[in-house]
């Protein structure tokens, strides 16, 4: 477990009737913001939309901070809020995230070929994640990207550990298949250009 996860995973101790409670709560919230942004970016696939989601989560957390159970993990609580809002949003909009195409103009930039390929590979990964069903995407981001345990991910998603395990396996296999297909497409694109 990384140092960063250790920090934000600290159980929050609330001090009733103390004016510092609010500051302590906000400090803990600020500490976990980078991880929430990463999680939200993986869920939404867009930086601005992700920040809107995190902002909404902060506002909801502050409004409901009395619901936070002392001694439990603050980061898990926040991840759950982010996930809940996101699910509500996609249900309300009833939209599917569109497949984000790699902008073609970048292919012709002056960047060194290796760097372009590396960046394209990462964009391909993000796009592949965006194609996963929401429940698999959530499991993948919580466990593989953020390094949470299956138990923590299960608590956040509100499902049994076994469900997380199977969602995760499906996501990982699907991701590999997507990436393999993507690299094939990229190779044929390069071959076509070379001809």
């Amino acid at each position, binding site marked *: 477990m990384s140092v960063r996860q250790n*920090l934000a995973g600290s159980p929050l101790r609330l001090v009733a009737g103390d004016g510092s409670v609010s500051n*302590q709560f906000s400090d803990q919230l600020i500490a976990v913001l*980078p991880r929430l942004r990463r999680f939200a970016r993986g869920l939404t696939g867009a930086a601005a939309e992700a920040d809107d989601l*995190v902002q909404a989560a902060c506002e909801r957390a502050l409004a409901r901070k009395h619901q936070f159970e002392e001694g439990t993990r603050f980061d898990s609580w926040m991840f759950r809020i982010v996930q809940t809002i996101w699910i509500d949003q996609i249900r309300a909009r009833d939209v599917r995230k569109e497949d984000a195409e790699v902008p073609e103009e970048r292919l012709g930039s002056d960047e060194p070929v290796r760097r372009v390929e590396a960046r394209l590979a990462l964009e391909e990964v*993000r796009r592949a994640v965006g194609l996963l069903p929401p429940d698999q995407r959530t499991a993948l981001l919580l466990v593989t990207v953020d390094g949470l345990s299956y138990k923590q991910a299960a608590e956040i998603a509100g499902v049994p550990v076994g469900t997380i395990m199977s969602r995760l396996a499906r996501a990982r296999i699907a991701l590999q298949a997507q990436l393999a297909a993507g690299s094939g497409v990229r190779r044929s694109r390069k071959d076509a250009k070379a001809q």
Partner: protein
Amino acid sequence: MQKRSDDRLVAYLDGELEMAERREVEAWLEADPAARETLAGLAESANLLRAAFDEAMHEPVPDRLIAAARGDTAGAQNLAQILPFTPHWRDAGRAGAWRRWASLPIAASLVGLLLGGGAGYWGLGKLWAGGETKQPAIETTAANNVWLDNAAGYFKLYVSAGDNALVDVPASGDTTQALQKISQSLPHEVRLPDLKPWGLDFRGARLVVVEGRPAAQLVYTTDNKAIGPLTLTIGSSKQSDIAPTFDHRQDVNLLYWRHQGRAYALVGQTDIGYLWGIANDVAWQLDAI
């Protein structure tokens, strides 16, 4: 069966299997080259996946999110009005300084530092004083409110946690190696100032997020309640250097300065005089002057 195998392979990779299950999977891997290949592919894609979303961990958190976390929907962009700490002794000369320090209940070790390390102490005081010949009584510094709020907040978080306080790098063990781990998340190496002459023991270090950027919080404790506990927060800053500046917020005292891309905040509930002396020592040891 294959699907179940995938579950187990992924769980094996994630370290989620019990010992007996691990052994079963390892036996299976040993006998099945295809499974080994799948496992290698899974490990590779996991690394790619982390790299693909790593960007968000290294970029500054937008101010609007910091403000939202503080419950300030209006944005809270205003800069701090900070009263710079100008010690009386600086104006009154060294004789005044001696009288000030002589009046403090200084422990024997502290007196030892002042006598033994006196040259460094006075030399630094002079350097800082010499760098800013004229200071307005009140100046609006470029210091960010959020930075100072965070540094003060993390100090209070540590104090309120009491014996349950968590540190990422405990004082015991290989501190150097552990600090290097923290340094990997920062744009600069973290060095540990020795504050034992002040009776302050290094308790541990944490990686914290100050103003949306990673920073190191070094924690020092002492039995002398007049001095400790103290924290030293070291982060990065793109703003210009400033001399040590005193600030009081959230019921704690801070001595804050910036030097060559790094921002420092010494935080505690101790007297300003102690903070000033310790900050001198820290700056001397870390070449942060």
